[in-house]
């Protein structure tokens, strides 16, 4: 559908939020007492922050929860049974105030979960998601959305994109039918645009991702990986805070005879990830795992999933205990 632009006053935004929050699950960012930015379901509007650069964790959990039950079973030797999960019970979730990088990540996740064979757990959750995005008027040294084909106010992935106007009100770009559905809940809150300028932060481009992809095609054996991953300690922080990392484990957990099979977040940074039962490990050392992380996102995914596996949110780098700065490394890779 054609995008329409409206303006919405700060007070009207509160009304809209309360209206949504009264009738459905709204997932919105708040600043926790320890200063970490986290998402909560239906916090009071007064708690909701419009001033965050990035939440500690991404919001991928709304479509790819850290633990997802795949089915329940009863193990009774000859008479074992399986009980399916009712995916129709997945509730509608309104994401509130997520930034363009996080919103663009959903389509990347879709490119993985619908590759060849469709994963209903993801697609049902994705279907039920409404995204009210918020352009960035703040950024920091870790942001690099402009290097991966996005901008601080890209509309990709949003159903409605809010952008702060200079007078403190907001511009609302209504981008999809889902977004239109939100507007129709209370059309009077959306007023004609005032001509006021939007306030958008500037994010400097650090590298050209297309050139990086070209370079990576012949970089597998490069010394770069060993030299630049010496300080990587092999934790899963980067993968778990990443909005596009989708690797998972599948496990069973039983109590008595009954149990569930679930999938949970996993990380290519772990040695155990590829370890064979025989003891053989195709990715034996950390440099091979770090290479996999970058190659997967910037070389394999563009070719196999037709999407770049990164949105430039900077979480992996700001959350890394030893400053493995991915933008810095990609910039270097562009020039090898």
């Amino acid at each position, binding site marked *: 559908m054609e995008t329409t632009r409206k303006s919405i006053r700060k007070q009207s935004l509160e009304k809209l939020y309360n209206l949504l929050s009264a009738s459905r699950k709204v997932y919105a960012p708040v600043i926790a007492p320890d200063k970490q930015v986290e998402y909560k379901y239906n916090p009071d509007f007064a708690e909701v922050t419009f001033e965050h650069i990035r939440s500690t964790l991404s919001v991928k959990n709304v479509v790819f929860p850290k633990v997802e039950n795949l089915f329940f079973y009863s*193990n009774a030797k000859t008479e*074992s049974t399986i009980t399916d999960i009712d*995916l129709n019970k997945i509730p509608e979730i309104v994401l509130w105030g997520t930034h363009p990088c996080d919103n663009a990540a959903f389509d990347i996740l879709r490119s993985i979960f619908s590759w*060849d064979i469709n994963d209903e757990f993801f697609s049902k959750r994705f279907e039920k998601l409404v995204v009210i995005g918020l352009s960035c008027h703040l950024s920091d040294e870790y942001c690099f959305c402009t290097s991966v084909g996005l901008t601080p106010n890209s509309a990709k992935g949003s159903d409605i994109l809010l952008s702060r106007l200079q007078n403190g009100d907001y511009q609302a770009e209504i981008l999809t039918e889902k977004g239109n559905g939100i507007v129709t809940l209370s059309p009077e809150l959306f007023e004609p645009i005032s001509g006021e300028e939007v306030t958008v932060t500037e994010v400097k481009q650090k590298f050209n991702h297309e050139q990086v992809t070209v370079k990576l095609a012949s970089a597998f054996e490069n010394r770069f990986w060993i030299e630049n991953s010496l300080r990587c300690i092999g934790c899963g922080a980067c993968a778990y805070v990443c909005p596009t990392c989708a*690797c998972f484990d*599948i496990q069973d957990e039983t109590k008595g005879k009954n149990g569930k099979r679930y*999938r949970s977040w996993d990380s290519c940074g772990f040695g155990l990830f*590829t370890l064979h039962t025989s003891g053989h490990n195709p990715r034996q050392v950390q440099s091979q795992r770090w290479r996999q992380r970058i190659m997967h996102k910037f*070389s*394999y995914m563009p070719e196999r999933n037709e999407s770049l596996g990164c949105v430039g949110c900077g979480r992996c780098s700001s959350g890394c205990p030893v400053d493995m700065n991915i933008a810095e490394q990609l910039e270097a890779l562009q020039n090898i």
Partner: protein
Amino acid sequence: MSDNIYKPYLMEIENIVEETPDVRTFRLKFKNSDDAEKFSFKAGQFGEYSVFGEGESTFCVASSPTRKGYIECTFRKAGRVTNALANLEMGDTVGFRGPYGNTFPIEQWEGKNLLYIAGGIALPPMRCVIWNTIDLRDKYKDITIIYGARSVSDLVYKQELKEWEERPDIRLITTVDPGGQTPEWKGETGFVPMVLEKLAPSSENTVAILCGPPVMIKFTMPVLKKLGFQDKDIYTTLENRMKCGFGKCGRCNVGKVFVCKDGPVFSYEQILLLPEEF
């Protein structure tokens, strides 16, 4: 059928063969006859076998698609799931998801000689295609099978080895590593590459299918090359660790190639293009 791609078929263990002290073959029958009817697979494909409460384990379907109504799998007790599988009894339920992955291009092999070379527990991934081609015997010329194991007791499918040996239209050579023979052993004694070199089969109009431990592959490849086999006429399977089986969980890739989707069957020509990550 549910849209839940992680939900396995329920299978009943119809038969158990103890191949060696730690290797078992299960014959699995679909508990639901509708599932049995809709199910089909091709030689080379694999699945996820599960014991509820212990998890899933990946191995190939070891029976031939020409044998309908059941599937068979052969596994070695090694980790959590295979140990749990080994403790099951006839009639017990296991889960099976699949088939996944690509297949041996047996149509392309029609009219050619087939040379199967397997070592140890790597005969099972090949057993499916061996039987498949034997069951379509008139489409292929000579069928030769070289199978080696560490010792006589490590040879799997002993019953079938006997059957193949007795068939005039199949040439079977079995061998055990030096020291692995028994006084009654009538087969060869020596490593697979040496046995192959001694046999020296012609590479003319022949496809070689090679599965075995890395060390066997390493020493067998030069012999095949010496015999004149071209990379495109040598096939093998890769067996990286997997969870989902359909390209989402992210652990089986070798470079950009996903073993679960692009494999597990590869020609040696394709293998040479892969980075060293398997």
